[in-house]
């Protein structure tokens, strides 16, 4: 009876019975079993999005504040939809990226918000560690929606969900992550998650964009893109940050595309059923060719769709009891 418990067909380690944290600050804090719990819960949440009435009363009466100190369309929208589908009351505050970067101001902002007694705060901030800082001052549950160059845990969870949905497992898959490794919080969260779940992770980019100690995380690093792509089950491209990169880290965008850009020709080395992923926003013709982004093996739009289900799972699991983890 395959329809009986689709969650059990996910090829993941046994899920824990709970997420024993007040906050989701990073993948760093999650065990493999907790990651499995989020992914399995997301299966149930995804079904809700396919109904004609896409709403359940689970978070009725809960208030969630989306506090975004950096511009974001995809992540903020995704969280908002997830919150609304769970019937939470939501409030989104976007604060211009440049004006507030100091920790003190962040704490003041948070304290003011806390005075209005929200249950959860979803935080995107340009400074690494902003969520950790906030979690020490706030009673509300803090969900990291991307902090500086540190972590973006829900992105890694939705990436994992998308892979498992197609491949039914993570363990043993070769995942090649190619692009701007140095500045990427998506990379860090993905490395932590994928290695915890037993995937074989390769990272690839120009030598100037490879963090020096990246292999300490249990991944293999290379600047030869063919080596990374060969027999890969998943090729994940990371955005080259046009505004910051040009001239500094490699000669030109055209040259980057020549050497590292993902084309159909280059993908011939990967497994025939390779999944192409990109956390967005894409630079077509820089890290990825349009033919690949729009091709049959691309699951880039699945990632976006799955983001809502995964964020619903995280919101639901964190909204429950206040059972804290042991002091960590």
């Amino acid at each position, binding site marked *: 009876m395959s329809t009986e418990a689709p969650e059990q067909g996910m090829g993941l380690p046994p899920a824990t019975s709970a997420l024993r944290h007040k906050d989701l600050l990073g993948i760093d804090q999650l065990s493999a079993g907790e990651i499995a719990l989020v992914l399995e819960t997301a299966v149930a949440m995804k079904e809700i999005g396919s*109904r*004609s009435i896409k709403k*359940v009363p689970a978070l009725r009466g809960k208030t969630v504040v989306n506090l975004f100190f950096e511009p974001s369309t995809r992540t903020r929208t995704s969280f908002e939809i997830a919150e609304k589908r769970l019937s939470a009351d939501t409030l989104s505050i976007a604060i211009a990226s440049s004006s507030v970067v100091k920790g003190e101001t962040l704490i003041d902002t948070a304290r003011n918000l806390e005075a209005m007694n929200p249950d959860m705060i979803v935080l995107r901030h340009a400074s690494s560690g902003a969520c950790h800082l906030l979690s020490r001052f706030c009673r509300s549950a803090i969900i990291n929606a991307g902090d500086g160059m540190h972590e973006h845990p829900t992105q890694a969870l939705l990436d994992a969900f998308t892979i498992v949905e197609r491949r039914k497992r993570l363990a043993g898959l070769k995942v090649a992550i190619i692009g701007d490794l140095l500045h990427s919080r998506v990379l860090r969260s993905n490395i932590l998650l994928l290695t915890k779940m037993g995937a074989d992770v390769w990272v690839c980019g120009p030598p100037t964009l490879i963090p020096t100690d990246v292999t300490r995380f249990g991944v293999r690093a290379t600047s030869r893109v063919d080596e990374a792509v060969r027999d890969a089950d998943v090729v994940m491209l990371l955005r080259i940050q046009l505004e910051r990169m040009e001239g500094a880290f490699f000669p030109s965008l055209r040259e980057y595309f020549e050497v590292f850009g993902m084309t159909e020709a280059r993908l011939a080395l990967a497994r025939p059923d390779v999944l192409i992923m990109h956390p967005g926003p894409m630079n077509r013709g820089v890290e990825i060719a349009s033919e690949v982004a729009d091709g049959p093996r691309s699951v880039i739009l699945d990632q976006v769709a799955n983001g809502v289900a995964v964020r619903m799972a995280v919101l639901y699991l964190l909204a*429950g009891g206040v059972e804290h983890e042991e002091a960590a």
Partner: protein
Amino acid sequence: MPVVMDADRIARTLTRIAHEIVERNKGVEDVALVGIRTRGVHLARRLARTLKEITGDDVPTGALDITLYRDDLMRHDVGPQPLVRRTEIPFSIEKRRILLVDDVLYTGRTIRAALDALIDFGRPRAIQLIVLVDRGHRELPIKADYVGKNLPTSPGESVQVRLQETDALDEVVLEPEQEGAA
């Protein structure tokens, strides 16, 4: 631990209920079964098989997870969130007679949640409730239309329904007080 229903008794009971369904609905033409996870789903599937034997018709069968509709969600000060599993209702419930199936009817709160959940899927013509065991102690004005067995219990006792599909045997057991709540 007194066994109050054994495998034969459960099988006969389900057969009886299937006949009652056919009688009451004059066939199964616009009928669909929806089981409440976990054991209600197994009972619904068994009823669908029996209904097929009796009438020759396939009765659409779905699975409902009511976790996100529970009235005690977020109310426990300590403790994990209950696990959410997938709801699968691969047919329109619009204008159908929905037979909602659960293993044990107790306070009625699960059924209240199930009714809310079902109605988010559309407007059925009617909802009828089937339970294998009614153990009493209702806290809401809810009543089953088809009852396998009325079992008088005290609130401290626990009724365990075990089914082949999940527990490797069919039986209903009444567990005494000290076992605590189910």
